[in-house]
Structures are given as C-alpha cells and as structure tokens.
C-alpha cells in the first residue's frame, strides 16, 4: 500500500529504532543526523590534526613518514570542510529554518533525507582510502595537478567521494532555497526574516553556483589521468594553472559558504544577550549579499605566486580588499548592537563574542594576505595556516558551538550545564590561541606549510602550538559530554529559553514537538523582526 492513496495519522506507521532515522522525512530528525554526523567527523578530522601537531612537536622526522604526514594534511582538510563544518551548518539550517520562518517542514522532505544519507557513504569511500596499499591522497585538499595525478589507487575514490559530497550539498542547498522562498508563514516578508535565514539563503545560492564547478574541475582531473585529456597538461596545450583557476572559482565562494551562516548565528545570539534588536538589520542583509557577490571575483588571490599577468593580480588584490568593507559593516553592527545593551554572558554569548574578536583577527590577516607583494612572502607559509584556522576554527566552529548552546535547550527541552559550558568556552579560547597564534610568527619567519620537518629555530613556537593543539583537541570531549548530558536531562527549558530571545522558534515549546507550525503562524513586527528601530 502506498502512502499516496491514504492520509495517515501521525502515529500510525512511524518506524521505530534505527530504521526511523534511515527513512525519516522530518526536518528535526534530519537536522539531528547532520549535527551528529558532523560531530563525529569533527573528532576524526581533529585526530588527524593531532597527528600533524604530534609530528611537528619537534624538528626532524619523529612519528610518521612524510607521505603519511601529507595524507593527514589532505584528509584533515577534506574531512573538516566537507564532513564537519558544512554538514554542521546544514544541520542547523534543517533544524532552525522551518522553525524560524514558521514552516511545517522543509520544502522537499524526501530529498532532504537523501541529501543527508549520501554523506555517510561518501565519507566511507573517502576514509577507506586510508586503508589502501598506496594510502590516502597526499596532494593537499586542493588536489592541484600534476601532483594529484601522480597519486596511487586512492585518486579515483577521492574524486568520486567528492562527487557524492557535491550531489549532497547541491540537493541540500536547493532544498533550503526552496524552503525559504516558498514556505514562509504569512507576514514573514523577506525583510522580516531572521538574519540566520538570510545568510543561509545566500549561502545556499553560493552552494548551487559553485559545487558544480568543483565537480567539473575534479572531472577534468579524472579524465586527464584516465582518459588521455590534456586540460592540465602543457604538452597538449593545457595548463596546470587552469585547474587552480577553476578550483578557486569554487574555492573562494566555498570559504564564504563556511562563514556566512556563522554570521547569521552570531547575529541571532548577540541581540538576545544584549536584550536589544540587531543594529543595522538591513545593512547586514546587504553586506551579506555584497560579500557573496564579491566572493565570485576574488578567487585568484589564492594563487598570486603562480605567475599571472600584473593587471590580473592588481584586480584580484583590490577586489579582495573591498571585502573588508561589508565585513567591517558586520563587525560594527555587532558591536553597536551590544552598545548600551543589558548584556549577560551565557555560554552562547561567550562563543559569539569570541567569534567577533577572533574572527576579526583572521579577517585582518586575510587583508594582509590580499596584498600581492606581501603575499609573495606569506604564500604557502604557516601564516596562511594561522589565518584560515582563525577564520574557520575560532570563526566557523566557534559560531557552530555558539549556535549549538543557543538552541540546544530548544532541541532537547533541557538546559545544558552552564558551568561546564563556560569552562568549555574558556578552555577552548585559551588553547586555540596557544595553538594558532604562534603559527603567525612561524609563517612570517618562513616556515612552509605541509612539510613534516622544519629548521630548528622554529622549534619553540611549534612546541607551543602542538601543546595548544592537544589541549584544545581533548577539550572538545567536554563539549561532547555537555551535549550528552543535556540530551539525557537537566533543568527543563521554557519555550522562550532566553530572556531576550525573539523569533518564531521561541514560540513553540521546548523541546520542539515533532511537528511544528502545521498551521502557519501569522507574523507581524512584534514577533520576529530584527528591525533596527529604536526600542
């Protein structure tokens, strides 16, 4: 019997146990799956990072051979980007987008299930390459030819795993765009949408635009290696630099894919704990859109040293610097939101504030890297590693953690352990800086990235960095414990959870019932708006 012919009541054929999670169409279930998957990948990718930091604790080859070291840098990046950060944001979107816009579920619930359930298979393929005789890919996550084409048997597996991740991302993004454009409750006009919704709408657009480009790039790699094409072979009239252009045309929007939803989360949290409305709501929306637009015309700043015409380098340098303007607008607005607010410092707020400060550090080192002559010095050094880890770890990952603490009571119906949450924040913040800040100095002094050995004068900073890495890494087990403890029980959470929270997600009980907004709510300025009128 198909469910097409009859209307079922909610509780009739609800599968139980594990199977329920395999066949679920519920956005909350799928959001949970995404978030748990992302946490597992965060730990796996983190373990790889610890292998890297252990090897770099002292000069000389200590623990692993150079090829395995390179496999670790490559896999750490692929796992963290495609397995940890992106799925975490998609999980948050799954949970929160329908709740925040007053929709009964995602627009395409069946496809939503598929978007998630491709991922475990894709990462099974990716991680399986570690156990192949020739090992995992070791060319760096960017898979630049000709090096990547010289890898072992894992090469084809990695390419197909990336194809699967791309299919999953594109379907997830299409679903989010369709949901936001089509499923909003009456009165939820575009400029009444919470900023998390806005940032995800723009992120989803970026995903649909660039994931196919990555698919094209890796397909060309595949045909160059196995079918005799010459896209990246100068002997046949191609150019290895062509790969870098196509890859970074994907890759730069990709880094904004990993930060725009973080902006959205922080823009939800800071007003709540400042007990004010977001300052400059409309300018936040326009700034997000500007950043997204600019992300398409700055890609070549990743390849200044590859040999490009001077005019191109100048264009990409100035275009890159322009991004600091809308980003500055955002930082200004967050600070202005806090200005004369009645602030309290619960764990989500602490992580959001940590985000604002440390993301700014990463942003400023980004401006330094944008300067062509300076980049000639910094390129492929540990300065770059420090830069993008400030943006991705203290930026994206801190924002994800802020979001998890912020919405965890809504998901579980319990308050998390505030004392442990604060310990987690301070522990992470201290050690993450011990981990990454010295890498700036290492890079400026000339230590290259992706090399398992280094000159002895780099020893102290590397030791400090490794100690920070291990302390930060093991500290995340506390995060897992806090989540587990909160899911198990705790002080019951009210519907509104936070004193200053606004928005539709706080109008439903905690934990949010399996189905919410079957009948759409009616939205007016009093409920959900982040309008920057004076209050």
């Amino acid at each position, binding site marked *: 019997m*198909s*469910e*097409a*012919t009859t*209307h079922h*009541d909610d509780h009739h*054929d609800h*599968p139980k146990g594990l199977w329920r999670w395999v066949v*679920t*169409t519920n956005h909350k279930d799928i959001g949970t799956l995404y978030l748990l998957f992302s946490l597992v990948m965060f730990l796996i990718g983190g373990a790889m990072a610890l292998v890297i930091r252990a090897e770099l604790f002292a000069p000389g080859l200590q623990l692993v051979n150079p090829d395995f070291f390179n496999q670790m840098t490559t896999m750490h990046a692929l796992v963290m980007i495609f397995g940890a950060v992106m799925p975490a944001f998609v999980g948050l979107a799954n949970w929160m987008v329908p709740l925040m816009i007053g929709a*009964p*579920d995602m*627009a395409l619930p*069946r*496809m939503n*299930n*598929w978007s998630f*359930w*491709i991922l475990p*298979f894709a990462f099974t*393929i990716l991680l399986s390459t570690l156990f192949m005789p020739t090992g995992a890919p070791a060319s760096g996550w960017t898979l630049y030819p000709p090096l990547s084409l010289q890898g072992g048997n894992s090469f*084809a597996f990695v*390419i*197909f795993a990336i194809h*699967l991740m791309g*299919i999953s991302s*594109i379907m997830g*993004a*299409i679903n989010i*765009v369709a949901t936001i454009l*089509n*499923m909003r409750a009456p009165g939820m006009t575009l400029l009444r949408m919470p900023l998390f919704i806005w940032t995800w709408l723009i992120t989803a657009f970026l995903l*649909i*635009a660039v*994931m*196919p*480009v990555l698919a*094209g*790039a890796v*397909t*060309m790699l595949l*045909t160059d290696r*196995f*079918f*005799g*094409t*010459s*896209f990246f*072979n*100068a*002997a*046949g*009239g*191609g*150019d290895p*630099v062509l790969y870098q*252009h196509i890859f970074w045309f994907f890759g730069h929007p990709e880094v904004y894919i990993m930060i725009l939803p973080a902006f959205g989360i922080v823009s939800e949290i800071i007003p709540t704990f400042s007990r004010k409305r977001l300052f400059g709501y409309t300018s936040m929306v326009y700034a997000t859109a500007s950043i997204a637009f600019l992300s398409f015309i700055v890609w070549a700043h990743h390849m200044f040293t590859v*040999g490009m015409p001077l005019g191109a380098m100048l264009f990409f340098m100035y275009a890159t610097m322009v991004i600091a303007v809308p980003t500055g607008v955002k930082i200004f607005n967050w600070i202005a939101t806090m200005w004369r607010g009645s602030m309290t410092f619960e764990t989500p707020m602490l992580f959001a504030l940590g985000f604002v400060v440390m993301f700014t550090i990463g942003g400023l080192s980004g401006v330094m890297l944008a300067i062509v002559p300076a980049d000639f010095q910094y390129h492929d050094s540990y300065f770059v590693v420090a830069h993008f880890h400030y943006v991705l770890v203290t930026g994206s990952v801190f924002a994800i953690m802020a979001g998890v603490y912020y919405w965890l009571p809504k998901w579980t119906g319990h308050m998390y352990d505030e004392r442990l949450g604060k310990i987690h924040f301070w522990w992470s913040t201290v050690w993450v800086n011990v981990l990454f800040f010295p890498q700036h100095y290492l890079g400026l002094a000339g230590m290259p990235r992706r090399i398992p050995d280094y000159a002895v004068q780099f020893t102290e900073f590397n030791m400090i960095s490794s100690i920070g890495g291990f302390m930060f890494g093991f500290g995340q087990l506390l995060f897992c414990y806090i989540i587990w403890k909160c899911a198990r029980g705790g002080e019951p959470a009210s519907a509104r959870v936070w004193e200053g929270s606004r928005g539709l997600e706080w109008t439903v009980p905690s934990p949010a019932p399996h189905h919410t907004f*079957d009948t*759409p709510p009616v939205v007016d300025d009093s409920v959900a708006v982040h309008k920057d009128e004076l209050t």
Partner: protein
Amino acid sequence: MAQGSYYVPATAKWPIVGSVGLFIMMIGAANWLNGNPIGPWLTLIGSVVVIFMTFGWFAEVIRESEGGLYSSAVDTSFRQGMIWFIFSEVMFFAAFFGALFYARMFAVPWLGGEGTGAMTNELLWPGFEAHWPTHGPAELGGDFQTIPAFDLPLLNTLILLTSGVTITLAHWALKRGQRTALVLWMWSTIALGLLFLSIQFYEYVHAYRDLGLTLGSGIYGSTFFMLTGFHGLHVILGTIMLIVITLRCMFGHFTAKNHFGFEAVAWYWHFVDVVWLGLFIFVYVI
C-alpha cells in the same frame, strides 16, 4: 502525511536505496579505473540499483500527484527545485566553457610566447606557434582535422531548435486539452532528439575513424569531446525524460492547468537546447 495543507510524506525509503546504489556504483567505477576486474560488475549493479530507485521514487511522486495530495505550495516547491537544479547544471557546463576560453585566450598563446610566456616558449617549447585548434606543443594524439561548423553541426542546430518549437506546440496543445496533437508533437520532439543523437554519434565515429580527432588530441580534443560529450549525455537524459512524460501524456496524467511534470521536462529540454547554441558558436563556429 498531510501537514496542514502542505504534503510531507511520513517516510522515504527510496533515498537510502539511491545512496546504496550510488555507493556501489562509485566504488565500482573507481575499481574499474584502477583495472580491478570486479569494477565493471559493481558499476553495473550500482547503476541498476540507481535506475530502480529512480523509477520507484518517481512512481511514488506520480501516485501522490495523481492522488491529489499536492497543493499549489508543493507545486511551487517543485518548480523552485527544478529551476535551481537547472542552474546547477548551467554552472557545471560553465566550468568546461571556462576551460575552453582559458585555453584559447591564455594557455595556448602563452605557450606560443605571448605576454609573459616568452621564456616558457623559448626554453620549454621552442618553435611552438600558438594557433587554434591545437593539440599542443607536443602534438599529442597526432594530426587531426576538425569538423566544419556549417555542415552536420548546423543541421544539428536546426534539429534542436526545431525540437524546441515542437515541444512548445505540444505545450500549447496540452493547455488547450488536445491530447492527440499533444502526443504527436511530443513524439516529434523525441524523434528530433533521437535524430540529433544519431548524427552526433555518426560525427564521433567520423572524427575518430577519419579525422584523427580523439579525446587525446591535446586541449582541442579534450574540450571538444568533453563539452559535446556531456551535452550529448544531457540530450540522452532529456530524451528519456521526454519519453516518460509522453507516456504520461498518453495515460492522461496531465490536465490543462496542472502539468508541472511536463513543464519541468520542457524547461530541461530548452536548457539542453541553449547549451547547444553555446557549443555551436564557441566550439564549432569560432
């Protein structure tokens, strides 16, 4: 089950079937490329599972649609989904067009010593003069000739453009409720699609057998066959979609007002058409 007016299925069993199918298919393809004899078999099994999933999934959606479970909001979600899917396809082709433009505008001239490429030319590829079409300074794949644009490719352009007209005539017939005309125009569209594919196939055989133009013919062969090849795959997919939708027209699945399945296929067909125009201009003519 129905959530208010918006239909949300209680469970979805097809996605996991599709995931397992893709998983087997990808593992099979990678093994195949690595020369493992089990590869082709795994690829075949995975493909069968994916095709099975596609039929099952669409059958379920069609049953639900025919059962009247879809509101206009669901219809809008499907439209959004199809529009953005086509946009993602456009970006996929953009990567390959980008490769073509980059090779012609930059890579090949630089190899020939233009701009900053003087030393590259002098030291690495002395004597190489930039020209298009090219198989590069190492003359990979041996001598070849190209396919003249104003020959079979022009005919193919006319065929695809005509098929865009016939599918529009079919749509008009559908909106007027004239099923016989609808089905006739649909079969003509399919026939034109198949004719296009046959000519493309003939052209490929001709290129490989008589012109010496292969996938290995340097950057020209690479861009030519990858662009036209991916386009051809999309025409094959589009033709299958047309056949399915035509059968559904014959079964009377669509009404004059409610026929999104038809429109989605028509959009896809027009997309394939537009990509071909880009190909005709940039690959064949210029």
